[in-house]
């Protein structure tokens, strides 16, 4: 047996050349870095808002930022299609894979099938109206453009603020996908993960209740 092991070890194998993967890496900022960048982005946005002349703000009327979500209020929405909530969610993944993507476990711990696409882990909820919960832990930013939707800052849980976007549909840009129209959405972030809950039938109290259940801060 030892001889066979030695022979295996001595086998000069003609491995394919290893590509220089390190040189090709294109990394998105991690949570820690993203937090620092987010602060920098907020400072920059504040400076722009403070010094911009009115004419230069005609395209982007207002800018909100929370976690990995940027919301811009614009005069007119770009062309965007309406698609079912369940479309383009990616491939099914198990809890371990979702945790690897997010850098932490998917919440709530008890959930239906998870899907992953470009760093976004999603699942469909019944609230009882259908809703889509997406979580992302990297700087895979999504951008929302809104013309007439209401954007409101809300408290999701103690120390966790969120943005509630409701009313007229807004356009949402996920990385690597064409823009689509989205219904009412609650966005919040905690511990480096951004959460996005979307559903046409969602109202604010129900969205907040679901968010608290997701975070495990619901008082029952």
């Amino acid at each position: 047996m030892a001889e066979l092991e030695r022979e295996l070890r001595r086998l000069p194998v003609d491995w394919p050349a290893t590509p220089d993967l390190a040189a090709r890496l294109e990394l998105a900022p991690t949570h820690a870095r993203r937090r620092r960048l987010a602060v920098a982005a907020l400072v920059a946005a504040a400076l722009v808002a403070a010094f911009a002349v009115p004419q230069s703000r005609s395209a982007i009327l207002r800018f909100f930022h929370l976690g990995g979500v940027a919301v811009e209020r614009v005069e007119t929405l770009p062309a965007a299609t309406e698609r079912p909530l369940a479309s383009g969610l990616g491939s099914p993944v198990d809890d371990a894979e979702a945790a690897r993507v997010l850098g932490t476990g998917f919440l709530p711990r008890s959930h239906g099938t998870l899907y992953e696409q470009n760093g976004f882990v999603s699942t469909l909820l019944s609230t009882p109206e259908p809703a889509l919960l997406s979580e992302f832990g990297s700087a895979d930013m999504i951008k929302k453009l809104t013309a007439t939707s209401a954007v409101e800052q809300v408290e999701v849980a103690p120390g966790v603020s969120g943005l509630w976007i409701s009313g007229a549909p807004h356009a949402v840009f996920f990385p690597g996908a064409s823009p689509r129209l989205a219904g009412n959405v609650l966005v919040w972030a905690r511990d480096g993960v951004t959460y996005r809950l979307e559903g046409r039938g969602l109202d604010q109290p129900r969205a907040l209740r679901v968010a608290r259940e997701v975070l495990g801060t619901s008082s029952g």
Partner: protein
Amino acid sequence: VEGRPPDERELVRRARRGDERAFTELVRMHQEIAFRVAYLISGGEAEDAVQEALLKAWRALGRFRPGAPFRPWLLRIVANEARNRRRAAGRRSALALRAEREEVSGGAAPSPEAVALAGEERGRLLEALEALPDDARLALACRYLLDLSESDTAAALGVRRGTVKSRVSRALERLREAYG
């Protein structure tokens, strides 16, 4: 005077804080073994598998336990991605390796017959290895062709160290029977 290159633990610490250069350096240290593990599992998908796995590793660094060895953690992610890709492609893993021509390194050159015979033996051993079932083949390839430790092999195969031991032992028996 050039400073000493930062050790792995320091690079991991910096990478966890979002230092892209530190992570790139870690990748450079381990990319060959990562690529070869992925190649053993997924063949032609290896490059894509490693690239995707590296991005996942970068995103998951926050969950890496400080002080733990980096290589098995990375190999686990790489091997998992390679397995997913192999499954998606509906293929069995294949070594698809060839024995290299042995270089003559000084001393009396062996006769052409001896070189041919040695090459034939090596080819036969690789063929016997190739004919083993997936689990057995990968266990032996990780342990002996890549010279991975039992811990690293366990990480690459997604099993416990004890399973690696028993799998390698059984695989050697089978190979011995097949190779003669």
